[in-house]
């Protein structure tokens, strides 16, 4: 870790762990978050207390400003759209209309002059709801007599993807062994530490509304909110200021934002909404509620020749915008084979509606679950073939790249086996096995678990279009200006909220333009200031906004060279940019950027009409995508009396191509792994059978603390792939993707003397004890 000013011996900024430009304000308490803005009015949402029912009456306290669906005349419901896979379009009114479909669904908005008063008055609102039968679990929802969450979705199936390679049945039939695994992933909440928050202000003079909100997608929010309200998009400005974590939860449209903009316009006042943690747990978005059954068909030599999968994803009561609720089941279908070379594949993936909080993307989306499923399959297959799990994986990992998967994805340059070898060597598996044996002799149960996976990152429009999405994200644009003083500003459509893009993009641009990162200002999170873009999600920003930054910097560089060429009477090809100067190569003839910049604006005549005035360039990048990969190894100790799991160590060997800033890359891995460990051991949203949530506080829903997260060790490989302009691959989600599988495999390894197969996450002490009890009884 070095200061930006200290360049050491490397001529390049890329690859250096420079300190983040984001940090000085944040450590001083000068961050500006959505909930920090003062407002004239405050909103409290009145939410449904039942999972399924008909609204009979809504009665507000006298004199209070209470808005219901009936008041929002002309506001359209949220109706995300997909044009494939038998998707059934369903609508979500921004405030419940006639019926409620999950506990926490917003029914009315109470507006008052303080947050406390709004909360007081909202408590006095009487909502009479006639209960109807609720269905909470996906396997129950597909039963013939289950109540319908939306009448048009028969059997509560909202989306159904099917894929089968022509030779799959035959390969299944001729295989030497078929190994089955059925896993269950319980529901989670992404739980950004900053709850959802927003502030809307109507400017009478311009007729515009400025919405400041905790979002990962400011431009997309502007488009959809304006569309639903029926206002001109130009009359809405969306600002994502400092955002206190998102992890996917803040990329989807929440109906509360639409209501807030509507109220600001209607009342002509500033209005704020900050949810409390209970609302966040009950009514934001959930994820990962899936059942997956796999059958792997193996040759006698332990090579998988066919894979069949059945995916059941509980997507809750509504479909999220823009991805739709198909994102979990369809991603599971497309990416199930993971890093393994299996040519025959069949999958049925269904999204099932229930009377629960809607599902939306959460770091890794389906991949923590599918990696858990296929890595359990690998370990079970290893046991069946009496092979070491490492050997089992080595026989099946993809080895020749580029590789086209059975579902048509192209795995770009990488070396999956080497990534695993690095992990195995670093953890010293042989030494562990000796230690494990000695511990067992003393009645202690240590276990080691692996997860190998590839992570699709930085994918552009083709990947999203393949899902049949009506709203097809993918590309990013960067506008780059050098102002008359010579300062560089890059305005980006991506919208970082902790990823450090202000620093990493500046490193990329600085190398291209021969300047230093601290002289470059990255502007993001304001639809008035930045070009249209898709925001920050899906491990995409460094790859796509990074690529666009490089392209824009090349254009700015070309312009600087042509201007310098004219002023220095040299060919532009002979100009190099270094140290904030343009220099004629092989000479000491230089011209400082600030002189060039001033001339570009104020002395255009010096260029004889050969260059256009000013320095402002724009570039867009829309890549096909690139796969990073990793091998995670967990070492655990399981207390068989209490079912408690202690994590001793966690090691990550990963290959995300070129590392722009290793310090930031490792930070992303740390955070992802911690969330994956929580997924494996702790966090679970629990509903009772009537759809009432039992985990609505952080005393019930258990994010890990520093005590639960073990020391992590990281090894990097840097396979350079041309699938990314900067040769950087994404890695924002990988930590969360691999960790659950590694931890659960480690627990199963620890409990192998008892012939336990634990295939459910989180593996709470109760579940571990139950698995041990049932294993001992049989």
């Amino acid at each position, binding site marked *: 870790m070095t200061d930006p000013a200290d360049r050491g011996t490397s001529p390049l900024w890329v690859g250096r762990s420079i300190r983040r430009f984001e940090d000085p304000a944040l450590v001083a*308490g000068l961050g500006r978050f959505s909930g920090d803005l003062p407002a004239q009015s405050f909103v409290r949402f009145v939410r449904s207390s039942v999972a399924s029912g008909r609204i009979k009456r809504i009665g507000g306290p006298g004199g209070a400003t209470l808005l219901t669906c009936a008041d929002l005349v002309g506001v359209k419901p949220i109706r995300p759209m997909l044009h494939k896979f038998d998707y059934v379009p369903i609508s979500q009114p921004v405030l419940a209309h006639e019926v409620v479909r999950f506990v926490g669904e917003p029914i009315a908005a109470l507006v008052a002059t303080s947050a406390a008063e709004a909360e007081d008055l909202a408590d006095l609102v009487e909502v009479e709801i006639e209960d109807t039968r609720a269905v909470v679990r996906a396997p129950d929802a597909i039963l013939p007599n289950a109540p319908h969450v939306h009448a048009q979705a028969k059997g509560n199936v909202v989306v159904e993807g099917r894929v089968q390679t022509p030779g799959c049945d035959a390969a299944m039939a001729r295989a030497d062994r078929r190994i089955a695994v059925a896993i269950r992933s319980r529901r989670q909440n992404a739980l950004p530490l900053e709850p959802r928050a927003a502030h809307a202000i109507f400017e009478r003079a311009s007729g515009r509304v400025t919405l400041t909100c905790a979002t990962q997608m400011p431009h997309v929010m502007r488009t959809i909110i304006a569309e639903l309200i029926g206002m001109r998009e130009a009359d809405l400005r969306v600002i994502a200021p400092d955002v206190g974590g998102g992890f996917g939860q803040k990329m989807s449209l929440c109906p509360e934002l639409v209501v807030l903009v509507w109220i600001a316009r209607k009342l002509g006042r500033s209005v704020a909404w900050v949810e409390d*943690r209970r609302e966040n747990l009950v009514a934001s978005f959930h994820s990962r509620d899936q059942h997956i059954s796999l059958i792997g068909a193996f040759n006698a030599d332990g090579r998988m020749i066919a894979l069949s999968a059945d995916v059941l994803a509980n997507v809750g009561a509504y479909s999220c915008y823009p991805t739709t609720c198909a994102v979990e089941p369809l991603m599971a279908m497309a990416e199930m084979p993971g890093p393994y070379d299996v040519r025959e594949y069949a999958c049925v993936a269904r999204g099932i509606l229930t009377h629960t909080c809607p599902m939306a993307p959460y770091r890794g989306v389906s991949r923590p679950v599918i990696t858990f499923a296929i890595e359990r399959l690998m370990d079970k297959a290893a046991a069946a073939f009496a092979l070491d799990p490492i050997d089992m994986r080595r026989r099946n990992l993809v080895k020749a790249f580029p590789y086209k998967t059975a579902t048509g994805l192209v795995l770009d340059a990488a070396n999956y086996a080497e990534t695993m070898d690095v992990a195995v060597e670093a953890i010293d598996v042989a030494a562990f096995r000796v230690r494990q044996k000695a511990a067992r002799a003393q009645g202690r149960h240590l276990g080691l678990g692996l997860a190998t996976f590839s992570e699709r990152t930085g994918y552009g429009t083709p990947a999203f279009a393949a899902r049949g999405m009506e709203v097809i994200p993918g590309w990013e644009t960067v506008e780059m200006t050098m102002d008359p003083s010579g300062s560089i500003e890059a305005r980006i459509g991506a919208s970082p909220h902790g990823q450090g893009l202000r620093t990493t993009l500046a490193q990329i641009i600085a190398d291209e333009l021969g300047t230093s990162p601290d002289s470059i200002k990255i502007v993001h999170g304001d639809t008035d200031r930045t070009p249209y873009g898709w925001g920050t999600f899906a491990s995409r920003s460094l790859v796509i906004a990074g690529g666009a930054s490089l392209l824009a910097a090349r254009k700015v560089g070309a312009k600087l060279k042509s201007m310098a060429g004219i002023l220095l009477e040299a060919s532009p090809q002979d100009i190099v940019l270094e140290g904030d100067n343009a220099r004629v190569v092989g000479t000491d003839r230089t011209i400082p950027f600030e002189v060039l910049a001033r001339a570009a604006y104020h002395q255009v005549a010096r260029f004889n009409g050969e260059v256009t005035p000013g320095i402002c360039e724009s570039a867009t990048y829309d890549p096909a995508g690139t796969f990073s990969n990793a091998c995670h190894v967990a070492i655990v100790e399981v207390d068989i009396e209490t079912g408690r799991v202690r994590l001793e160590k966690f090691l990550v060997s990963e290959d995300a191509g070129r590392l722009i800033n290793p310090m930031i890359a490792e930070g992303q891995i*740390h955070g992802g792994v911690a969330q994956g460990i929580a997924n494996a051991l702790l966090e679970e949203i629990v509903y009772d059978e009537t759809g009432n949530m039992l985990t609505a506080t952080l005393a019930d829903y258990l994010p890990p603390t520093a005590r639960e997260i073990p020391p992590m060790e990281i090894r990097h490989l840097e396979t350079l792939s041309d699938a990314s302009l900067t040769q950087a691959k994404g890695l924002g989600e990988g930590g969360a993707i691999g960790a659950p599988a590694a931890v659960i495999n480690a627990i199963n390894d620890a409990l192998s003397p008892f012939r336990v197969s634990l295939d459910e996450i989180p593996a709470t002490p109760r579940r571990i004890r139950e698995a041990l009890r049932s294993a001992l009884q049989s």
Partner: protein
Amino acid sequence: MVTEKVEITLNINGQDYAVRVEPRRTLVDVIRDDCGQTGTHIGCEHGICGACTVILDNEAVRACLMFAVQAQGKRIRTVEGLAEGEQLHPLQTSFMAHHALQCGFCTPGFLMLAVNALETNPDITDEEILDVLSSNLCRCTGYQNIVKAVRSTAHELRRARAS
């Protein structure tokens, strides 16, 4: 429900704030809304996450779990008061050097928690630091670099005392 407002004076980072507040208002709400010091954040409002941690006299407290009226006559310190002029507190510098923050939302709470621990127990061990830090939640860093930053500052301050 709404109650009669009372006049109180809060001393935050050495400055007195005279405010009229309902007795039911929490300390963190008054610090943020009435005194305008928004560096202290609210993450859960039920005493679990610690984003609202401030130092009250010599104790790190959850500002969401006490009323503002209870903080009268005490010295309240928040993240805004950590630096002396332009000179950051060593722990603020250490958080930047060790990449101990990402989104920065939990950071003020962690800084106040750890500064208090270092001040009240200068000989704090690495294990004790881990115990203290497990009071608060961070969702971004996996705690790895927060632990490193605090341990490194503890060692640095001990070295400075010894020399």
